Each structure stands twice: as structure tokens, then as C-alpha cells.
């Protein structure tokens, strides 16, 4: 080793000198998106590995399970002993798969219904640092992602893109102390600024003490920050304390309530109205769409015939009087004062509501007294 270094001492020193200066340049230079080159290079070098690891993790669980099953087929005695454990693993695996499928379904439904233009992304890594509230997602500038874009889930906002790299993006989570977003309360339309605290709970600043905000109230994005469009759920007010000059409000963010695996990046946000009702957290069943050609019209699509009145007692009485008048040739509303009134005691054949002499005309075709 020593002789090798002595032999190639010059070229080694050259490479070291070049490398040191490259690092020096990379620490200072920023690209056109105001991101230092050293970060671009590092993330570009690291995120493909993270993507591979994520892909391997997703695909390997099924492979490992199949291998275990195949192995057990040849070892009958061990298979019997491990049956219970394997079934438990299977159960957990299926539960995870089901959960994942539910999340993907909810995400897809939300994506198709929201007016904003979005791109789905998967979290592939967490930023370095013990207290890091930054995650990396697998969508970057190649997918149209830019710095400053909002990141949401169907349950609420998640964070914002702080750096976009070619194949990945760094997302500052809502819980990071550097995070801030404009919010508005659902009931009183009270505005404030949501801030992360480095903990799972966020706080809302700049809400004057005279304003009314109640625990259990939902907060939505106000759109004032020009990052998050108006109307996205933020979270549920957990604690409200009176203080001077601003209230102390703690919020449970809803966007990460179900974990953070799949997110949506808002490429073009569209402001929405603040809903009257709080968002529903329960999964919503959406049935399949009706077939286009197999819809058969009902047998009797028209209104019920006058002979079979349905409705109130007054409707039935009117139909009865109309039939009595028709049976005696009387038209209601045309007789002069003093003329002979129809005999309302006339017994009509058949039950009331069944035309005796002629079928009923179309609705509204007869005059009424």
C-alpha cells in the first residue's frame, strides 16, 4: 500500500487537490433554484439509493414470504411448528397491504376530485439530523415540482417543498419550527399563523385574545401565505389558552394523522371555500359507476293516474268530486249563481279513485272549483 502511494503520489495529490476545490466550489455555488450544488450533488447521489431501498423493501416482503413457504414445503415438521407464526405474519402483511390499498384509493379519489393540479409522491427518506422534520419524496423538477409548492394529503396539509432536485424533493414538514402557514378557523373565520414546534403539535400565533376560537374547532388554510390554497384542512384545535396579546392555541395537524407515506404535491393550487361541516375522517365508500347501456327505464315512468291518487286526504276528496261532476256533466267553476249544483251524494260504481265512465285526463286537464 505504501509503495503504491509512493508510486502514484503525484496523481493522488492532484486528485485530492481537485476534489478539495470541487467541494469548495460546491459549497458556495447555488443552482438556478437557489440550492447549493453540494446539496444537489449529495441528494442526487443519495436519493437513487433511497429509491432502490424503498423499492426493494416493497418487493422483498412478498419474495421472502414466498421463499419461506417454499422452504416449508420441504420441511413438513418445521412447517407445522411455524404455522401459527406464519399466519400471523400473513395477517399483518395483508393488513398492511389493505391499509396501503386504502390509502392509495383515498389518495386517488382525492386527487381526482380536488380542483388543484397535483402529482402523487412517495416519501423515500428522512433528512439527516436528529431533530429533522424534513422528508424526501420521489418527485423532483423532472415531474414539475418546484421549491415552495404545497404538500398535502386528503386529510390535510403536510408541508412545503424547500428544495427541488431533479429526481427528488425535500419537504419541510408542518411540525418543523421553521414552518409557517396562514390558517383560518371554521366557525369564526379567525385568522392566524400556524407554526411548527418540533413536536407533533403545532401552535397558532397572532390570534388576538378577543377573538373566539374553541377547542374542537377545525382550522383551514387561509391562502394568505401564497403557498397553500384556501380551504385545505389543517387540523383540530386542541387547546386554547387566553393570553395577552395573543391567544395560545395548540393544534393537532390532521395531514399526518394516518402516517406519512404517500402525499400529493400541488403543482397548481386552486382556492376553495371553507366547508361548513368539519372534514370527515372516516373512509368514504364510493360505489362503482352505473353501467352506461343497461339502465332500463321503469315500466310506468309517468305520473300516477288520477284514478289512483296518491297524496293527502284533500287530494282524494278532490278526485272524488271531480268524478262526481264528470258523471253528471258538470264542470266546476262554470256554473252561474243559482244554477243546480251537482249531487255530491251520487254513488259511483267502483271504489273511490277508480274512473267510472271514462279514463282520467292528463293532470291539470280538468278545471277546478
Amino acid at each position, binding site marked *: 500500500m505504501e509503495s503504491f502511494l509512493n508510486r502514484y*503520489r*503525484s*496523481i493522488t*495529490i*492532484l486528485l485530492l*487537490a*481537485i476534489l478539495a*476545490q*470541487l*467541494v*469548495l*466550489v*460546491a459549497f*458556495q*455555488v447555488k*443552482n*438556478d433554484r437557489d440550492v447549493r*450544488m453540494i446539496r444537489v450533488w449529495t441528494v442526487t447521489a443519495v436519493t437513487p439509493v433511497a429509491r432502490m431501498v424503498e423499492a426493494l423493501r416493497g418487493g422483498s416482503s412478498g419474495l421472502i414470504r414466498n421463499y419461506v413457504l417454499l422452504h416449508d414445503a420441504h420441511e413438513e415438521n418445521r412447517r407445522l411448528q411455524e404455522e401459527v407464526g406464519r399466519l400471523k405474519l400473513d395477517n399483518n402483511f395483508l393488513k398492511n397491504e389493505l391499509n396501503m390499498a386504502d390509502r392509495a384509493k383515498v389518495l386517488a379519489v382525492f386527487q381526482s376530485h380536488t380542483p388543484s393540479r397535483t402529482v402523487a409522491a412517495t416519501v423515500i427518506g428522512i433528512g439527516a439530523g436528529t431533530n429533522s422534520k424534513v422528508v424526501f419524496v420521489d418527485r423532483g423538477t423532472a415531474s414539475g415540482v418546484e421549491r415552495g409548492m404545497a404538500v398535502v394529503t386528503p386529510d390535510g396539509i403536510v408541508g412545503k417543498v424547500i428544495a427541488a432536485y431533479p429526481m427528488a424533493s425535500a419537504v419541510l414538514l408542518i411540525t418543523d419550527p421553521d414552518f409557517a402557514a396562514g390558517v383560518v378557523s371554521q366557525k369564526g373565520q379567525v385568522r392566524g399563523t400556524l407554526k411548527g414546534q418540533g413536536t407533533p403539535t403545532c401552535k397558532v400565533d397572532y390570534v388576538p385574545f378577543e377573538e373566539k376560537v374553541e377547542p374542537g374547532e377545525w382550522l383551514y388554510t387561509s391562502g394568505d401565505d401564497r403557498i397553500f390554497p384556501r380551504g385545505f384542512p389543517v387540523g383540530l384545535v386542541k387547546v386554547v389558552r387566553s393570553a395577552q396579546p395573543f391567544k395560545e392555541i395548540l393544534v393537532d395537524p390532521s395531514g399526518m394523522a394516518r402516517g406519512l407515506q404517500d402525499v400529493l404535491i400541488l403543482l397548481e393550487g386552486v382556492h376553495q371555500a371553507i366547508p361548513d361541516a368539519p372534514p370527515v375522517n372516516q373512509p368514504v365508500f364510493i360505489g362503482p359507476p352505473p353501467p352506461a347501456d343497461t339502465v332500463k327505464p321503469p315500466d310506468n315512468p309517468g305520473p300516477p293516474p288520477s284514478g289512483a291518487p296518491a297524496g293527502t286526504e284533500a287530494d282524494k276528496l278532490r278526485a272524488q268530486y271531480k268524478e262526481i261532476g264528470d258523471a253528471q256533466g258538470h264542470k266546476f267553476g262554470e256554473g252561474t249563481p243559482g244554477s243546480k249544483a251537482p249531487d255530491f251524494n251520487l254513488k259511483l260504481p267502483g271504489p273511490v279513485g277508480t274512473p267510472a265512465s271514462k279514463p282520467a285526463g292528463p293532470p291539470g286537464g280538468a278545471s277546478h272549483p
Partner: protein
Amino acid sequence: MSYSGGHILLSSQREGQISRFPAWVMLMVPLAAILFQVYVPLFFQFLSFLEMPLLVVVYFALTRRSQVGGLLLGALVGLAQDSLSKNPPGLLGIVNTLVGYFAASVGLRLDVDHPLIRLPLTFFFFLFHQLFYWLMVRALLGQQLAFEAQKTLVLGLLNAVVGVSLFHFLDKLRKAT
């Protein structure tokens, strides 16, 4: 000044004489070259084409025949140039490091005391410097810097001519062996 014989290729490294310079020369000459590039064009605009620091690096690398010494001198001079420019430190440092290394490598093979060798070598290293700098700016800074080939060739020739004269002057500062 004494030029070695009638051949330009060295049969062995022992044949090439390693020039030694006093410490103050090694310190002051590069410094003077950098100051020249910084201040002289303020008063004599037409001299701004001269790449004096590059010429000094090429000279010391060629004559001292030390690859490590050449690359370190190139790195130091380049970093100093970067510090005095809007470039991020390291950009010209990398270019001059490579120039110093390759110049020293050439000095190990050729009789660089010969003026007919120095002229094309200086011309070549000026072109190498300009081309590599252009590549670095495009690759690292993402700037669309234009590369004017004809102008670069002319400036390379001018720098080579000045360089040969400068080298002749610097030869007088060598330690007597």
C-alpha cells in the same frame, strides 16, 4: 542563459536540470503576477489580455519539474485569483492546479529551457486554461459563457510571446547551481 544542446527530448529525468529558486522568488513572483493582473489593467486596459498568474505557474512548473510542487502552486495561485474575482473560490484553482500538474509532467519529458519549446507549450497551456475554465463555468456554475475560438487563439499567441520573454527574465532569478 544557457540552453541545452540541440535536442529537445530528454533521454532521462537526470538529464533535465531541476531549477531552484530562492524562497522570496517563489513567493513574490506569483504575488506580483496576481497584482499585475488586478491593478495594471486599471491603468492600461490593453494589457488585460495577459494571464500573468498562468504564465508564472507554467514557468515554475516547467522549470522545477515537480508535479506536486506544480499543482500546489497552481492551486494557490488559482485560489488567490478566485478570491479576487467574482468566481467562487476553487474554480480557477482547479484549472490552475491541472495546468501546474501537466506542465510539470511535460517538464519531466522535454527540454523546457529551449525557447522553441516554451512558445508552443505556453500557447498550449493558455488554450487548455481557457477551454477548461469555460467547461468549468458551464458545468459547475451553469452559466452560458461564450467561447470565442479565434480570439482565444490570438490571445494564446500573444501570451505565449510574452511568456517566453517573461521566462527569459525569470531564468535570471534561478539559483546558481
